[in-house]
């Protein structure tokens, strides 16, 4: 069955989720979303599921908690991004640069190399990347990403 399409209210909720996530360094619970929009918690919960079904965010499997709102991660990862006075987790190496790209601001990033020992430090300053070098591996074709998002 096809998931119901997203309406403008859903997209407004998504915008609120992103702004809250950046501001508080964590995603909102659905009851916090409900309070902000003056709706019932059950309605907010359904909105979370609609946004998940449309890949606008990703819920923890089996729960109505936000795990990812790309490029942001609710769970600790190997990619820590310090930006605008806040510390945020990125989902992956690509997303570690996605956060300053999304926020249009400078950032300092600490990342762990996936093979061998060691950490990388790199930064964005006035739109320019500098710091340690590295390559990001894209293991799966784009169309398979949503089959197993945590894997990618």
């Amino acid at each position, binding site marked *: 069955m096809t998931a119901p399409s997203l309406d403008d209210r859903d997209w407004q909720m998504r915008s609120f989720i992103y702004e809250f996530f950046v501001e508080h360094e964590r995603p909102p619970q659905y009851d916090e979303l409900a309070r902000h929009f003056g709706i019932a918690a059950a309605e907010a919960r359904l909105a979370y599921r609609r946004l998940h079904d449309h890949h606008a965010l990703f819920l923890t499997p089996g729960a109505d908690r936000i795990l990812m709102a790309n490029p942001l991660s609710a769970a600790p990862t190997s990619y820590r991004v310090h930006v605008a006075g806040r510390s945020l987790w990125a989902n992956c190496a690509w997303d570690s640069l*996605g956060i300053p790209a999304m926020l249009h601001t400078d950032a300092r990033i600490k990342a762990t*190399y996936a093979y*061998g020992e060691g950490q990388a430090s790199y930064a964005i300053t006035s739109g320019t*990347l500098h710091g340690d*070098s590295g*390559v990001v591996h894209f*293991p*799966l*074709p784009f169309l398979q990403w949503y089959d197993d998002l945590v894997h990618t």
Partner: protein
Amino acid sequence: MLLFRSEEDVAAWCVATGEPHGESLPLDQVWELSRAWYGDRMDPDFRGRTTDAVMKIFANVGLTSAFRHAG
């Protein structure tokens, strides 16, 4: 998507883990990709992206396998 020191490390990791060897981009190209991909993510008018738009973004940064497979 994981970070490696070099393409040689990617190859060694794929052998060690049995994971498929895809395509790698240096960090500076990933930064360009990030700006194209995430630059409008918090715009109030953001409504997602079509597959065609996604493929154009990948093509612009040289991530060719993405749309080889998607085609």
